[in-house]
């Protein structure tokens, strides 16, 4: 894409066309959003949705293109979050090694990617629906381990007092910079997934999803491709984990609990697993519900509401909100094509 910008005005129009009006409008709106939004809407809605959208995106990459539905995405993000806390400056009494932030971030994302690849390597030994069971078992076991272990995870209380760093003269903890940080990373990962899905690797992965036996017979290393997809998804989840720990300022076993693991799945499924925009859409819907549905049903019964919405979406539209849109769109197009009376 950056090449296209460099090669003059004619190709620039092509580049704009390639980007599509939808992306341009959405991008402009998101960039201008801080002008109208209060700090609350900027971080609690905007930033939070983008972070969970990235988590959903890491699942969408696996489930949508690879056919592997994972419940361990929050675990991978949690590993990055814990790594930031342990390597950086957490004001809990144990650990907090005080590495510079950029080194800690690189190490955290690397650790997350590695953990994700490992989880992938374990779970790709079986096929289909088994993945969901194995990843759920891994996520739950990690949660209990983090809760019981004090030497590394600091047990029930976890780590607190983690701050987003200040560099280039900007305190990234403030609302606007943090929003732009989330937006930048989300846009980057979104574009990467969109681009990657059309690359040779992306095509191969989708072919493996559709027919692993044929791909194996054609000479492709099916396991290696799947594990590499897990690694890439781990990078995205790891980045989201870093943002999440900066956003919350703390990380505890509750962050990586089973509820959170299922939340990520709900977000991805409600949004839709066919296109990378789906998880972000789902995240926005869920975060908005989380924030405002409390007024309607009360804070206690929120899970019933979200569970019901999830059930309805799964029953009515397997492809989530995107699927609904996909179903309505042809009708709208038909309407406009019809000759007038």
């Amino acid at each position: 894409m950056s090449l296209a910008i460099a090669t003059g005005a004619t190709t620039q129009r092509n580049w704009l066309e390639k980007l599509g009006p939808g992306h341009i409008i959405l991008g402009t709106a998101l960039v201008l959003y801080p002008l109208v939004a209060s700090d609350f809407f900027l971080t609690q809605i905007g930033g939070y949705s983008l972070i969970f959208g990235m988590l959903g995106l890491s699942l969408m990459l696996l489930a949508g293109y690879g056919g592997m539905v994972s419940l361990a995405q929050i675990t991978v993000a949690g590993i990055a979050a814990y790594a930031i806390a342990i390597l950086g400056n957490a004001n809990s009494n144990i650990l907090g090694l005080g590495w510079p932030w950029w080194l800690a971030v690189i190490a955290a994302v690397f650790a997350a990617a590695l953990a994700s690849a490992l989880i992938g390597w374990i779970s790709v030994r079986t096929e289909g629906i088994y993945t969901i069971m194995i990843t759920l078992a891994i996520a739950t076991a990690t949660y209990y381990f983090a809760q019981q272990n004090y030497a590394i995870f600091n047990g029930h209380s976890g780590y607190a007092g983690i701050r987003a760093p200040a560099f280039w003269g900007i305190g990234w903890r403030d609302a606007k910079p943090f929003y732009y940080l989330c937006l930048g990373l989300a846009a980057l990962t979104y574009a990467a997934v969109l681009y990657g899905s059309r690359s040779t690797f992306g095509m191969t992965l989708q072919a493996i999803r559709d027919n692993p036996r044929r791909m194996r017979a054609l000479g492709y290393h099916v396991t290696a491709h799947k594990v590499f997809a897990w690694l890439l998804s781990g990078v995205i989840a790891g980045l989201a984990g870093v943002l999440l720990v900066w956003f919350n300022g703390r990380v505890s076993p509750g962050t990586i609990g089973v509820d959170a693991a299922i939340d990520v799945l709900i977000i991805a499924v409600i949004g839709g697993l066919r296109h990378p925009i789906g998880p972000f859409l789902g995240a926005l819907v869920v975060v908005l519900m989380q924030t405002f549905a409390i007024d309607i049903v009360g804070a206690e019964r929120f899970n019933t509401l979200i569970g019901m919405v999830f059930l309805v979406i799964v029953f009515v539209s397997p492809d989530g909100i995107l699927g609904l849109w996909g179903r309505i769109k042809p009708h709208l197009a038909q309407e406009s094509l019809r000759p007038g009376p």
Partner: protein
Amino acid sequence: MSLLDRPSQTLSSGGMTLRQAWGVVGLLAAAILAWLVFAVWPDWLNAILISKKAFVSAILNGITLAGLYFLVASGFTLIFGLMRNVNLAHGSLYLLGAYIGYEVTNRTGYWLLGVAAGFAVLAIVGVVMQVFVFRRLEGDDLRQTLVSIGISIVAADLMLAVWAGGTYQITTPEWLDGALTLPVITAVRSNGASVFLTYPLYRVVVLAAAIVIGVGLWLMLHKTRVGMMIRAGVDDRAMLQASGVNVHAVFAIVFAVGAGLAGFAGVVGGSALSVAPGEDVRYLLASLVVVIVGGMGSITGAAIGALLIGLAEQIGLVYFPTYGIVLTFVIMVVTLAVRPQGIMGKAR
């Protein structure tokens, strides 16, 4: 171990076969275990394994916990094996059974009535789930699983609404209270008197119930007509349907038995341990790991898996408290690495 390293050589030279070698290893292990349980330990062994009492208690706790895990996981594995339906609401069924058992026992005063209610109500819930929810999504594994996740979220929240966040304990009847003195000497006092190990009677009864139900399930699967249909369905559902069997009736029966067993286990487990929110996740994890390790759709596999996981959990609890869960995890990973379909699972 040298016997195991050279199985082919011993075969060709007319010595022991691999099977016999395993038999010898098994016998040796059994002998060592029997000695560990019944002999009075020398001091060096006590020094390594904390104390004989701790060790034998961990083993016994592990086995009784395995009984409970088996009850929960056998339903899970039956449902999965026949319907390819990963019912992630299975933990919720356990917890609901426990709450119902608590209510019934508390109101009527009869514990056995509570146990029966736990089984019966959950069996009905299971049939309702199968008929009204899962049958509509037949053949779509992923959506069935997603729906079961949705159900578990809603169920957990509604149970929290009804029974709040407190911890309940189902009171067991008097004839199940008390302790059993086992013929196991834990120590010898300085005056020469032996100290025998005592163990709660209730836990022994739970184990016995699990064994009886396990044998009963096995007999049902292998000796009755319905069992034959179920096994045929596990192997080839389409063929079973083609030969004129009403598979939906078979599915409903299996779901009723599976969910009922989860409810039964809920009451039994709620009497031994406690009933609280979050237990659903714990028993779901146990079922998942037991079934992954033991092999999907196999009752024997569920028994072996439950025994491994129960023992690992309790021994881990005694000897490396904060890393206990890792032991469970390692068992799962090693099984997946060596035998992805599980110990008793069939490769598909």
